[in-house]
């Protein structure tokens, strides 16, 4: 074994997770989804298929939605990770979460964290989406309960609430 063999299987990484700085030594084969769940106890990120089909494990890495099961934790060294736990502020739900509750956008809720994190990324670039664009944006998130109708309704409503929030944040009423 070469002297650096140990570092080939385990690595120290430094990441910011939901605003908190985290230093951890991890197995190089650990995925981001398992990292946040098993190492950090952030079990809001769900694992469905573990091969990149269902979208339940979607998290944001430097603001962009990725499949948590198809990215290694070592690859996120130096990045900022956001999971569904970052959405609510104190006891107040994020506008998307509130819209999903009000529109019955979830039943069992297993797919919801992945859908919410996908939408956070998508709506940042497309704040006024057409329904058809939302369907395409969410085509990588599988839901086996709802039949998607209420998810799309909730996403449209959530997009509107986010726009309102933006408006009130800059003090300009539009």
């Amino acid at each position, binding site marked *: 074994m070469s002297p650096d063999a140990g570092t*080939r299987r385990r690595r120290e990484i430094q990441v910011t997770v939901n605003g908190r700085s985290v230093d951890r030594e991890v197995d190089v084969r650990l995925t981001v989804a398992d990292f946040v769940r098993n190492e950090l106890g952030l079990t809001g990120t769900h694992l469905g298929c573990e*091969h990149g089909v269902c979208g339940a494990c979607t998290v944001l890495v430097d603001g962009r939605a990725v499949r948590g099961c198809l990215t290694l934790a070592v690859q996120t060294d130096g990045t900022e990770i956001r999971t569904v736990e970052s959405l609510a502020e104190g006891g107040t739900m994020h506008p998307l979460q509130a819209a999903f509750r009000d529109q019955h956008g979830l039943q069992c809720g297993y797919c919801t964290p992945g859908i919410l994190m996908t939408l956070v990324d998508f709506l940042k670039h497309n704040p006024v989406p057409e329904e058809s664009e939302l369907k395409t944006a969410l085509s990588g998130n599988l839901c086996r309960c709802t039949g998607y109708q209420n998810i799309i309704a909730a996403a449209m409503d959530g997009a509107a609430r986010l726009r309102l929030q933006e408006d009130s944040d800059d003090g300009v009423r539009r």
Partner: protein
Amino acid sequence: MKPPPFDYYDPSSLEEGLALMSALDDAKLLAGGQSLMPMLNMRYVAPRSIVDLNRIQELQFCRRERDIVVIGAMTRQRDLEASNLLREELPLVVDALTHVGHLQTRTRGTLGGSLCHLDPAAELPVVALALDAKLHVQSSQEKREIAMRDFATFYMTPDIAPSEILTEITFPVRVAGTGYAFEEFARRHGDFAVVNVAVSLVIEADRIVHARVAVGGAGSVAQRAERVESALTGERPDEAVLDEAVRLSDDVECIADIHATVEYRRHLLTVLTRRAITRAAEQAVSES
């Protein structure tokens, strides 16, 4: 499902990556990971080492150099989709990218990774064929250039040695009178294609002077429908010519699998080819 154990290397320069690929036995390159990671998770593959290309900044770029567009092999699909340069010069790539997986997979997925993985139903190899792309491949010993049409040697088997790395892909920019079209049928948006067709036509003085018709999903590798191309070349793009050309797609290899029979694929191939060449011809006429 978890990846099997492997030794992990994440070089920060191409030179370092090439040295690793020459020195290591049984090493697999990790690009965007949207195919290799599932294969690792399911333990279809268990390489001794993984050489991760994600820290090599010099492989992530997209720029115009005279009459070609050069794209670094590790450039993210999502960045290409948003590239104004591609929208302007290679809109066919942008069209096809909207069919490649989903938002989350395009964030990580790369152009070079898709071309080297060479899934027969993927979109990017088909587009690279239709656009006469050239692949620049390098080992620590030498550099070489290979045309996309020679790159696929067999089902999911590119002409690239274990010690080599795909560094960049070049595409000729479009000339006046070029029309493009991409057509795909998949079971769901973002799935691999049952059949897809990419077409590039150039029309000068009412006649087709250059035709590329590339087909994915139908057979074991992406293919050029060369008889269709020859039937179009030199002709006016009228209904009779297009109909006759489409009939000549019958030598394109079509296979049966769980999603479709040979007959179904052959039918789809003719329908999608007809749509694509019609649309490309209309665009070429309006651009010429």
